[in-house]
């Protein structure tokens, strides 16, 4: 007979969840699918005394769209499973980049349990680079109020908060655009990322536009703004590709592990960028 010494709480809303967390003296953690936490516990991180389950909070277990200032926004509840998110028509049709990224996370069984919120809250999830390229915003609870900010800013925050919703504003149509989200793992599937790079090329009125984000492994994904700036507003024919990949290599700051060094990750990120650049050029002449 196994005995579980951890107390499991189930909160009916985010306020109660926060209160429970504040009231328990011992270690505690919010939990939904628990798939990422499980890997941590297996690797020796202390199992908490209290698990606060968020699965009963229905409000953030849905995907819907709104018109905000005449623009369509897609709202993804943080407690929606990755599998549900992946197959949802709004994500498939309007955020295919995110759908593609989610399809590379772990394995089907993990995606059935794990949530989009969990994938972001662990700060190294495979969906983050794509969401950064989509300029996603997040809704979160900081213990006092519900706030809205860009995902990019939220990732930089140090304070505890409870992620509630991911908001993606529909991109305005642009000509000759090409977007990509590539994950390179140690094997073909069910593997942590070594390098994840996502981007979007397009031609705007004032020249080329690039949005680029990269992560992978223990690296917190972030926008590569210096690389973007070298490309943005340039004439496509005069863009110095070598200089750009050189900048990417300098700006992308991956964390090494026992399997891959920083240099390898930088090289792969630059190579992937070049391949996508070529694909874009081929596609649009």
């Amino acid at each position, binding site marked *: *007979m*196994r*005995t579980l*010494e951890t107390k499991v709480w189930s909160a009916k809303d985010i306020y109660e969840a926060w209160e429970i967390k504040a009231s328990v003296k011992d270690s505690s953690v919010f939990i939904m699918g628990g798939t990422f936490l499980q*890997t941590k516990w*297996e*690797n020796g991180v202390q199992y908490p005394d209290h698990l606060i389950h968020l699965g009963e909070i229905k409000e953030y277990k849905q995907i819907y769209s709104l018109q905000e200032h005449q623009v369509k926004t897609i709202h993804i509840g943080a407690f929606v499973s990755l599998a549900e998110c992946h197959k949802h028509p709004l994500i498939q049709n309007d955020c295919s980049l995110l759908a593609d990224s989610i399809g590379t996370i772990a394995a089907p069984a993990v995606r059935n349990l794990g949530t989009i919120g969990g994938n972001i809250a662990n700060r190294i999830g495979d969906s983050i680079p794509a969401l950064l390229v989509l300029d996603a915003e997040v809704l979160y609870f900081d213990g006092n109020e519900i706030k809205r900010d860009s995902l990019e800013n939220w990732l930089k925050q140090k304070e505890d908060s409870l992620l509630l919703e991911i908001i993606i504003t529909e991109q305005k149509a642009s000509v000759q655009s090409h977007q990509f989200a590539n994950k*390179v793992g*140690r*094997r*073909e*599937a*069910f*593997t*942590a990322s070594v390098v994840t790079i996502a981007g979007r090329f397009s031609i705007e009125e004032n020249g080329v536009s690039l949005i680029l984000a990269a992560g992978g492994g223990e690296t917190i994904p972030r926008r590569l703004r210096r690389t973007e700036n070298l490309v943005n507003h340039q004439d496509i024919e005069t863009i110095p590709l070598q200089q750009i990949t050189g900048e990417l290599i300098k700006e992308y700051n991956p964390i090494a592990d*026992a*399997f*891959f*060094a920083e*240099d*390898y990750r930088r*090289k*792969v990120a630059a*190579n*992937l960028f*070049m*391949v996508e650049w070529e694909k874009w050029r081929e596609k649009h002449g």
Partner: protein
Amino acid sequence: MGNYTSSILKTSRIRPDGIEKVTGKLSYLTDLQIQGMLYGKVLRSQYPHAKILNISVEKAEQLPGVKAVITSKDVPGLNGFGLIFPDQPVFCDSVVRYVGDAIAAVAAITPEIAEKALHLIEVDYEPLPVIDDPEKALDPSSIPLHPNGNLLHQASYVNGNVHESFPHCDVVVEETYQLPRQMHAYMETEGGLFIPEEDGLSVYAGTQHGYKDRFQLSRILDLPETEIRVVSSPMGGSFGGKDELNIQPYGALLALKTGCPVKIHQSRRESVCAGIKKHPMKITVKTGATKEGKLLAHQVRILADTGAYATLGPAVLDFAVEHAVGPYVIPNVETHGFCLFTNNGVAGEFRGFGGNQITFALEGQIDRLADQLGICPLEMRKRNLRKPTDCGPVGQEIAPTNGDELVLKEIAHSPLLKTEKAHKQDSWKKVGTGVALTMHGGGLGFGRLDPAGGKIALNQDGKIQIMFGFEEVGQGLLAVIETLTTKAIGCSTADLEIVIGDTDKAPHSGSSTASRGTSMVWHSLERLKGPFIEKLVTQASAISDYPKEQLVLGENGVWLCENSEEKLVVTYKQLAEEKTVSVETQFDFPTTPNAIPGGHFLYSFAAVAVKVEVNLVTGHVKVIDIDQAVAAGPVVNPIGYLGQIEGGTIMALGYTLLEEAQMEEGRYVTNNFDSYLIPGIQDIPASMHVRAIEDLWEGDSYGPRGVGEIGTIALAPAIARAIYEATGHWVTKLPVSRDEILQSRERI
């Protein structure tokens, strides 16, 4: 090459344990539960190398729910185990030599209490310098890990004179190959249930040799072997990893100490830490050939990292030394192998048994020489192949065979070798193909106790019982026994009852290792069938008055076969009511008559053709097609044969491209399956073909050879050659480094 799979479907039998396994209904020994059982846990060392200054178990003993805490003081017999030398302490009390060393064990009413109790055991250590490299272990200034130093075993083979021959070679290639520490990665981790009985102890724990476990446990427990029953089957995989004792001493000691049944089942993390692995080897080879492509000289130095204890390290090294020239005739050979103790995890038996490592080096040399001489790799191999009646690779007498020639001929027809080298879709992907050849000895070899045997009986219920001491480890043994027995005796599967893996019920058959199971079942039945049939037809003749010459065994009983008439004369049940019958046989695995330690007599052969796609963006190598020709005598159960070859091939794919139980300063970096990666379904080529060559050399009376290992050997060098063809880079270290592939492109 045709698709072998299609013909298999018509002739294969569904394995008796298949449905239960794929539906998850089968109870493994680690699934057993019994009322009142306790849970055992083992405290492993915190250091890879340290003196133990003090062990204090009082606090753990006082924890409510703890029923026993045991240390070396509680071992009534020999505080040691090991298949060759019992040099691994059951419990360490003065020094620890690797992170899996056991110091104490606990039995408690729940696994959580047992785990908590482990944390309450206080051990004072004085860390010692860590030897984490066999080169370091060889250094005379290194601290000796065992009384006789750090050299566990040395093996050599010298023929001719390499030093005089190299100057006569037109081309000489010298290279150092580095092979990784692979983990068996069996589905079921080590564990079992241990039940104290009135007259001794019952052990329900997976192993590859129940009788050997019984012997080793008898030494440790100071109990007569007859008072220990070992039930050792079925198992969720082993691949060599469970041949040595693992948790059995702790379960047994705790059960006897508490008088209660004790269950131990290691977590994956515990399994990684304590379990044995494949030997990492560093192999330096210098090989010379004439411009006509004739091999002239081959000089080999093997350094094997055996870790902290011996287990089968010496035998693995002997195997590697023996197979250093493989199926080739090289007039001048000098092979020296060294098996070194280190503070790394213990290395021991692993499917392939040293053959994988040495074949990677040998075939790598052949490919490099062929390349330098501008000779087709297949032709290079053909020019140097042994003749059917030639001696074995260390000059020993072997059963004549042309298996090498047959598989080489067959693989030359592989259509994948004729494929387009340029990638159709992506300019940043390169395609390459490669071929490799291997021969692999079966059985334990000369000078090693290698008994085999079996028993057949007509029992009181009228069932024909066929009994072997072997274990079902996932290899499909039950289907092999069923196929061979029904064919040899003539009865139906419904008449048959298979008994295996139980020292109280099945006779000695030797170990379920070294590709010997299928072969030994066949040999046993060759000896059993005549006397058994004779006894039954004689009995049936006496009952029925038909002459025994006209009687045969068939479905449900003994049949009359006279001219075109066929009728059931007497059922097995009726025969059993008259008299039960049994026949037993004992013999040894055939071995070479020459006194060469570990020298083999029976060999199987394989040639592999592989096609890879190298991604120049990431350095990733993807295997996209594999053809394989195997010569191992007649196929017993085609789908089982295919399963062994394909399964072995996938294991080899992991070994080549993904798997390494990495260690840093004697500690595992890869502690679980999230960091130690084995191939998933998407890493496996959609296309794999196996061609079985069943011909044996004229007069060969040794029947089918086992195929448990042969599928694992030749893939790695074939992939290395294919990568070279795709990129121009020779890989020397496994698993293949993507970074190295990218760097090699930068150099170009």
